[in-house]
């Protein structure tokens, strides 16, 4: 939960003063207690408190007499040496009963059923605040000041009077609030129902017999409340998507948070693709499917290979760019009357709805990218905010301990699973904390250099090889296209994807070997290095391929013998996606199985196969980049990606469960990276890393290439919605100009467009404003950080004061106690020496 930023700092300061004042009263009462006990012993006044103190003190006396001089000498020595340590902890070691009683009655220390007084006084403060500021004080959390509790102290007559006055004060405060606020205040009090009933009777005594619920609540606030409830309910449903909840819980419980973050990432990607698919389907595919354009029927043999290559009958289907018309569909005409290529003829029927396909194409793709970008940046910033900590605390053990128990689980099996889950996470966290304390030894620089040079060199050569192979394949294709179309020629189309997938499969194995050779001590560094290398490989491969498609093929489609280069690029991407998936399946099923046999047979190690999280995540990101690159050319590609992700999820899950079934041990149920099972790592910031990797290289790259395509590449003239246009974005421009001519009232839209999009000054201004806003926010965060550290210091000082007073109290008690025993130690005030 983000730390709530409150620009108005004065309430906080005021509350601080209040709390300090409260502290003063507590300290006052403590001094009073000391004085009272002191005088009580001397004068022997028959107070109940004193009797208790005396009896407990006599008990203490006996105990100390039992273990005589040695203990006292020890105590003295220990006390002096341990005084620093004891002042660090106010725990129950060797404190006398009176000290313990004072400790337990400290306002900051007790909560409980007898703590009415302090809860009431706290509610007093809060209701006064509410009255003064006329707003909810839910976010302001004061330290609760419960009152005396424990040790069975009977309420003095004084205390009772005080409670009565406080209660009356609270009732007065409540009566001055509005009805809704009153109800809310009462509900939020941590008192028992009986107490609340009493308070309610007193507070609402002026409205006897009238239920607050039936009283007049202003309708606008009621409406606001219902709207809030509805909105909250919708958001709650949307955000807590129940997809795969059970499976994820089981995976998290068995394998830890690292592996779980991978599966959560699959779910995130699935949501993105579902969104893409829905928007595309609704605005693009559906209208075109209802009014199919006329194409020359192509005589293609239906072989199964079409499904993999995307050619054949699929190339003239809704899948690819070439199918879509470049005209406006008029919904009133029937398909049978449609003439070739153009609409159904212009009629002046005002009820006719015209749907401009090129415009729809352009805007749909643009808007989906825009919304995806916004959602990505938002989720990245939210996830970053969650993992970022303003304090110096390392790790989140305390949060884990206090907040991770889910009270909703009621079945015994689920409870056990949850315990398992928590134990796993705790062990992970503990080992990371411990691991951070160890000093890493320095590996040789030469080894690092060698490993890096091998990795970079192999990446470079791989990219070069793909470049040459792609060129070769295109030449081959040209030759094939001149001849007859045969099955072998079609299968050759799959060669390039196959080679790329092989490279993607083998090179990460090489990188793993390198990192094993380098033998990093910190698993986090190892992970980051591995991610960087894999990322570099994928970026270079995709860069080479994009250069081929957009730079070479799109620029001169005739040279490559293509009528419709967009469909070809779409088909290429489709093939890449499919072949990548097939290779992943083969790798999961056979690769890990074979490795396990190899490891057990040859290496004679009963170690579980390693789930390489970095590599798997980067494969996912690679697939998603291909999808985003291909959406422009293949509007139905997100559907393919959805199917692929669904199958991938179940496949990876079952392979993990099967592989770990044999060698599953409760303590070592962690699947680790970098082949160092002794050093498990925690993947708490992994989801932030994955989302930022998805956003920055992947989505940004896809956006850049799509923008480049739309803005600078000439669409092919024979097919697709943008044929005969110089550039793809001209469809939008044309529409704007049409709008200006047909509907002069909307001419300002055109003016706005020309001002905003084509004028760079506006963009600079916007950029400048954003930078200023960011700067202001960073300054605010800085200032708040300073305030937080000051407040922390203040609290530590208060704690030191408290310790000092308690130890003084203890010292005074001991001084008073020992004169009553025969062997007394010298007192500073006593007459004996």
């Amino acid at each position: 939960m983000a730390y709530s930023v409150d620009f108005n700092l004065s309430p906080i300061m005021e509350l601080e003063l209040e709390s300090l004042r409260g502290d003063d009263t507590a300290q006052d009462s403590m001094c009073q207690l000391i004085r009272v006990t002191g005088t009580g012993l001397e004068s022997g006044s028959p107070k109940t408190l004193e009797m208790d103190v005396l009896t407990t003190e006599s008990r203490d006396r006996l105990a100390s007499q039992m273990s005589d001089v040695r203990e006292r000498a020890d105590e003295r020595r220990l006390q002096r040496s341990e005084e620093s340590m004891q002042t660090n902890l106010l725990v129950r070691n060797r404190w006398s009963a009176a000290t313990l009683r004072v400790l337990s009655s400290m306002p900051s220390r007790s909560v409980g059923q007898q703590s009415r007084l302090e809860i009431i006084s706290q509610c007093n403060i809060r209701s006064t605040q509410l009255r003064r500021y006329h707003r909810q004080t839910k976010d302001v959390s004061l330290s609760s000041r419960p009152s005396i509790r424990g040790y069975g102290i009977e309420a003095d007559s004084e205390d009772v009077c005080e409670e009565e006055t406080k209660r009356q004060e609270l009732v007065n405060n409540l009566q001055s609030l509005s009805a809704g606020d009153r109800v809310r205040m009462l509900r939020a009090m941590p008192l028992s129902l009986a107490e609340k009933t009493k308070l309610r009777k007193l507070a609402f005594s002026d409205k006897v017999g009238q239920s607050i619920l039936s009283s007049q609540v202003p309708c606008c606030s009621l409406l606001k409340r219902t709207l809030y409830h509805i909105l909250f309910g919708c958001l709650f449903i949307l955000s807590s998507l129940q997809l795969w909840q059970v499976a994820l819980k089981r995976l998290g419980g068995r394998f830890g948070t690292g592996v779980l973050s991978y599966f959560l990432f699959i779910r995130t990607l699935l949501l993105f693709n579902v969104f893409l698919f829905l928007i595309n389907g609704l605005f693009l595919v559906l209208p075109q499917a209802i009014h199919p354009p006329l194409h020359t029927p192509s005589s293609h043999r239906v072989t199964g290979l079409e499904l993999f290559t995307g050619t054949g009958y699929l190339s003239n289907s809704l899948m690819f760019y070439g199918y879509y018309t470049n005209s406006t569909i008029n919904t009133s005409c029937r398909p049978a009357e449609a003439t070739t290529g153009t609409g159904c003829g212009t009629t002046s029927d005002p009820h006719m709805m015209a749907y401009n396909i090129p415009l729809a194409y352009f805007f749909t793709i643009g808007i989906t990218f825009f919304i995806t970008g916004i959602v990505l940046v938002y989720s990245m910033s939210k996830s970053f905010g969650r993992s970022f900590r303003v304090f110096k605390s390392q790790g989140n053990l305390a949060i884990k301990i206090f907040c991770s128990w889910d009270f909703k689980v009621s079945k015994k099996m689920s409870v056990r699973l949850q315990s398992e889950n928590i134990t796993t996470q705790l062990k992970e966290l503990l080992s990371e904390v411990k691991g951070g304390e160890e000093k890493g030894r320095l590996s040789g620089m030469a080894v690092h250099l060698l490993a890096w040079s091998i990795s970079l060199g192999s990446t470079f050569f791989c990219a070069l090889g793909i470049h040459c192979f792609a060129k070769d394949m295109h030449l081959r294709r040209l030759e094939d296209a001149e001849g007859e179309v045969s099955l072998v020629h079609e299968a050759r189309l799959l060669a390039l994807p196959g080679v790329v997938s092989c490279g993607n499969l083998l090179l990460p194995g090489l990188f793993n070997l390198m990192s094993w050779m380098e033998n990093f001590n910190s698993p986090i560094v190892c992970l980051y290095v591995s991610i960087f290398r894999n990322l570099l490989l994928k970026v270079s491969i995709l860069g080479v391929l994009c250069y081929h498609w957009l730079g070479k093929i799109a620029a001169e489609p005739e040279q490559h013998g293509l009528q419709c280069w967009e469909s070809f690029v779409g088909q290429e991407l489709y093939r890449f996606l499919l072949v990548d998936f097939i290779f992943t399946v083969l790798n999961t099923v056979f690769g890990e199985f074979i490795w396990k046999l190899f490891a057990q047979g040859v290496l004679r190690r009963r170690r579980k196969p390693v789930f390489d999280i970095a590599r798997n995540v980067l494969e996912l990101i690679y697939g998603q980049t291909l999808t985003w690159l291909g959406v422009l050319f293949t509007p139905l590609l997100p559907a393919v990606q959805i199917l692929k992700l669904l199958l991938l999820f179940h496949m990876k899950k079952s392979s993990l469960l099967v592989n770990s079934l044999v060698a599953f041990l409760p303590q070592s149920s962690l699947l680790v990276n970098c082949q160092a099972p002794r050093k498990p790592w925690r993947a708490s910031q992994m989801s932030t890393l994955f989302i930022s990797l998805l956003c920055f290289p992947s989505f940004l790259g896809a956006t850049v290439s799509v923008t480049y395509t739309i803005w600078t590449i000439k669409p092919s003239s024979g097919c697709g919605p943008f044929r005969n246009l110089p550039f793809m974005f001209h469809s939008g421009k044309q529409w704007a100009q049409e709008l200006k001519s047909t509907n002069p009232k909307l001419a300002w839209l055109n003016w706005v467009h020309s001002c905003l999009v084509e004028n760079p000054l506006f963009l600079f201004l916007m950029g400048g404003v954003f930078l200023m806003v960011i700067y202001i926010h960073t300054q605010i965060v800085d200032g708040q950080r300073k305030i937080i550290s000051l407040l922390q210091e203040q609290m530590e000082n208060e704690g030191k004061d408290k310790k000092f007073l308690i130890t003084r109290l203890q010292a005074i008690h001991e001084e008073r106690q020992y004169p009553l025993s025969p062997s007394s130690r010298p007192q500073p005030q006593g007459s004996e020496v």
Partner: protein
Amino acid sequence: MGTTASQLRKDLLSEYQELTFLTKQEIILAHKRFSELLSKEDRNIPTPRVPMEKVLSLPELKSNPFRKRICHVFSTSDMKDGSLTFEDFLDLLSAFSDSATLEIKSHYAFRIFDFDDDGTLDGGDLEKLVNCLTGETDGTRLTTEEMRQLISNILEESDIDKDGTVNLSEFQHVISRSPDFVSSFKIVL
């Protein structure tokens, strides 16, 4: 329904609705479930009290490792035996309900985790808490060394005034940083 004495009076119902976070249906359901726990002779007493064992037989609480503490915290019995009246039961459900505020939840969570009822979470409380979380079986318990390290880390992270214990404010401060405390601190009948 056989016994009409187990019906809730309308004015009581509206009063409970105002003072707790429960809705009308939830209060009626709670009343029904509470009446089922009562023995025959207790039904005619004005404010009947259900012993702790009966409360712990509720399926929602049966396997919860904190069930005994929950009963003790919400019980207003003078004998400290964890028995609950209907109003205590409503208090329990209200604190664990969907709409309860973070403050209420954290207040009661603190009291539940305070095993020795001294108003702070010291080392012993934290140890018992961790043992409850990790389960009863030996396979899942932490070693002594791990426990010691865990407790010192927790105190380092959450004990702001360095007195060796976590008091309510410090606890609420830790809770406020967790986004899913409110959703996990729930019991629904």
